[in-house]
């Protein structure tokens, strides 16, 4: 028990810095590199799956926010963690909804786990320098207010 508490103490006392870079393929097979996206503005990375209901609710909200703030530099990347069982449904789902944000595949969940993801929906918001502004576990009704405030703050809109 002492050991657990010590480890928790050790972990919690870190102040966190920037995120690690990654390259994943989008729905058309093009390579998408995080560091390239950061050149455009703050990046919101949402880890989701086709079988995750709250992920899709959050995605609908994030799409609206993306359309509202993309011209101001807001970047939204949906990282699908669908495995081989459901990955073939990702593109039909995204395109049937008419979503235009970037969607990439992380089939083996390597990027998801390197960002500390445990269960979706899990999101990481990065500023232009790649520093982690905030991480989000889960999604509940009304979270759109908080998400919009975070985006406004990240974009520096007054």
């Amino acid at each position, binding site marked *: 028990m*002492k*050991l*657990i508490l*010590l*480890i*928790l*103490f*050790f*972990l*919690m*006392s*870190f*102040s*966190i*810095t*920037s*995120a*690690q870079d990654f*390259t994943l393929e989008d729905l058309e*097979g093009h*390579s998408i590199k995080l560091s390239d996206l950061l050149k455009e503005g703050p990046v919101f990375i949402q880890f989701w799956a086709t*079988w*995750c*209901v709250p992920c899709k609710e959050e995605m609908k909200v994030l799409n609206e926010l993306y359309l509202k703030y993309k011209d101001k530099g807001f970047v939204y990347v949906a990282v699908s963690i669908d*495995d*081989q*069982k*459901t990955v*073939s*449904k990702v*593109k*039909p*789902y995204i*395109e*049937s*909804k*008419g979503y235009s944000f970037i969607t990439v595949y992380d*089939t*083996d*969940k*390597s990027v998801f786990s*390197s*960002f*500390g*993801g*445990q*269960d979706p929906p*899990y999101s990481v918001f990065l500023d232009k320098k790649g520093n*982690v502004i*905030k*991480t*989000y*576990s*889960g999604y*509940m*009704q*009304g*979270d759109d*207010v*908080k998400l919009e405030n975070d985006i406004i703050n990240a974009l520096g809109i007054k």
Partner: protein
Amino acid sequence: MKLFFVFLFLNLTFNFPLFSQINLKVSASNQFRFGTGKENALTGDVTKKYFEEIGDVRLFISDFQFGARFEYDDPIEFGKGTKGISRRYAEYKKDAFLTRAGNFYEIFAKGLALNAFESRPIGFNTEFDGAKVNVKHSFGKKTPFKVNATILGGGLKYTDVNDTSRTEEYSVRAGNFNISPVKYFTLGGSYLYTNGKIPTGNIMTEIDAEIFEGNLGFSWKGIDLFLSYANKVTILHPNQVYTRSQAPRGDGAYGSVSYTRDKIGINIEYKNYRFNLVTPDQRSATNPFKPLPFQNAPSCIKVYSTTLLSRFPHNVDFGDEVGWQVDIFYSPSDRLSFNANASLTSRHYDYRDADTTVLTRYERIPRNNSFLPSLRNEFSPYWELFFETEYYWNKNLKTKIGVARKTSVLYSIVDPASSDIIRSFTVPLEFQYTIFKIYGLKVVAEFQRAYNSLRAGEKHYNSQFTSLSVSRSPNLILAGNFEFTDDEEDPSGKKFWANGELTYKFSSSNIITLSYGSERGGLKCSSGICRYVNPFNGFRLTLINNFN
């Protein structure tokens, strides 16, 4: 005390200004689970307690990543518990080159040859301990020739999800490549060799297996096609259980085609897994010719997220199964969307007893169209139809209604009259309303009419599930879940289950969930692998932390 100073030293070291010059990053996550109560097992109520602590730390130093998992199970809820460091690795990643030593998971193509993963809710884990190297490269810019190759080697210990006293050990060497020689096509291939030790009681059976896999992808103007074929040979080392040398072959094929255009997306999948076509008496978790635990191909079965629809899942037999699935998404407007799904799965063949004496010798009945699933009970079919529509009346009000029909047959060749046949008709409803922007109300109601052939008395019964939750964004959810059945022969001996749940977010990524009450239990599946979870009555606590 010594430990305290070690941690203090590490802590001060990493936060010391000198080290802030180096590109150093740390991220960590922690999950703590505790539960106490009674489990309604077949033999009666038994006390159940679990205590699980999992801490993951990742340290990034420039292009290097070091990670470790500390796990303390006393005991674990499902699977085999650990006390100590259960995962550690070092990784170097620079541009398109990656190498990793230590623990890792990997998937080749769609998993016909290799798909190692962890599903903690069912206690499944096929984690490797070894090394892997991955290289990606593009030649040319206008029409790039893309190459992606991986080689790996290592060992793994797989604990049977349904019998934790059984642990299989494998040593694996494998490679995979994928090229995109011209614009719309991809070609890939995998090779895997393994030496395995599979326990049967106290006797260990040794095997060598080789798997060759090839795949083809095509993507053009909204059409995406993927085909994969794998062939496996297993060479047995004779022992007391298997006295003669054998080297049977098995194979598997998977295909998917999807078509997308504005507002509509269609996906069709086909599977034909014949990795271990054996007579009914030879089907066993200890059969050395079975698909390997790290072979996990697509299940082609819909994954449900509602309670009653998840109640009768299909346990996929990757050794002998053929089937298809069609999934359609249609969103005529931003507010309205439809999802329709149909699937059918069965075994390839029917068998008969060819022995004319009192002994039994099963023989396969030839069938020309074994590449198609059958609806006949002798083939243990599973089929389902699902339709769901979702409508946003406005930004604050959402409704969802669905309808599902499922039939599952587990055929008994010994006594066909005692085959396990389950039919269900389910209607799930959902209502979601947001008040004053941050307060949420959610009601989920499911109604199910089911038929179970193994019930001695009334075979038809009804079940009803209701969940009511209120939330206050961004940090509080209160939920109550109630389930009722008029099934006189439910394995738990109960007809009503109720539990309350409180979720509180200390911050956006630090969550505590407390629940108390009774849960019905049932079959839980992940990627086609299932285990039975007993009904539970008691208290649960889950604490999730992320430090990024």
